[in-house]
């Protein structure tokens, strides 16, 4: 691609991405109350969506070949247990990532 074509492609990508972010606000502008079902979704969606995001993070893990997702599951377990125990963000998140990186390189 030429430089102009790259810039155009980036423009298209920005536009499409912005569209996915703006669309709900265009459909339900602040000036009027969204339908009741949409208000209900607004309240409830953060819960299933975080569940979906966690699954999304693990989407490429293969349980049928070595190391059978062991580092991922151990990392998940580490973060859940350490966070319930200490409620310390750095210990859970940075500690969890360090634990995972270590396991995934050793195994």
């Amino acid at each position, binding site marked *: 691609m030429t430089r102009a074509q790259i810039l155009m*492609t980036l423009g298209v990508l920005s536009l499409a991405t912005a569209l996915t972010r703006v669309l709900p606000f265009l459909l339900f502008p602040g000036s009027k109350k969204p339908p009741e079902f949409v208000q209900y979704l607004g309240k409830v969606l953060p819960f*299933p969506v*975080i569940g*979906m995001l*966690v699954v999304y993070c693990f989407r490429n893990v293969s349980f049928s070949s070595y190391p059978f997702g062991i580092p991922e599951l151990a*990392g998940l377990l580490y973060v859940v247990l350490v*966070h319930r125990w200490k409620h310390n963000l750095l210990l859970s998140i940075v500690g*969890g990532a360090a634990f995972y990186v270590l396991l995934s390189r050793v195994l």
Partner: protein
Amino acid sequence: MMTDRTQNGTKFKALKAAFPFTLPVLIGYIVLGIAFGVILSGRGFEWWIAPLMALFIYAGSLQFVVIDLLAAAFNPLNAFVMALTVNVRHLFYGISMLGKFRDMGKEKPYMVLTLTDETYSLLCSVIPPEGVDRNWFYLSISALNQCYWVLGCTLGAIGGSFLNYDTSGFDFVMTALFIVILVEQWEQTRFHLPVLLGISVSLLSLLLFGSQNFILPAMAGILAAMALFRGRIESGFQS
């Protein structure tokens, strides 16, 4: 003069209050941003493309995916469809932020355009501390996060070729952030049906459709499950 100063005080106070919440994203975005910049410049692209993408696309997974597309022949329609498919999950973020962003003024467009996975999950879970301006607090979170991403991508693109940098596995910071938010949501309420439905529908969709195509059916399934169990969910939230 006075009002200017107090206003700046309010902004700075909000920024200071927001910063600690963004630390996990700071680490994650810098590490992943550098990884992105390194790959991009490694494929022979000019360095300024990285900050440009970080500023105007600002969607991590899409940016990684389109590196191949940028290296291929010019095809804007394909790019458009790919960006829509990779990013459809943003629709849910917008719907859950309709209420939170309702009273925002001129900062609202920026808040909407910068709703990444990480910013969304922070905005869902953090509560502005007492005495801190709510809108400036949320804006600080969104803006800090984007700064980290722009910084990371730029560093990677400029300096990437100099450092030998194995980032494999570092992206677990993001996974850990989402798990932490899930745990905190879990502890906030004794009613777990919505999150359990979210996890099981997504897992089912992943099994049925595979890792490349599962998000859209998962979203549809979540919508259906939320509609189907609406009565139980609404009474569960009230108790």
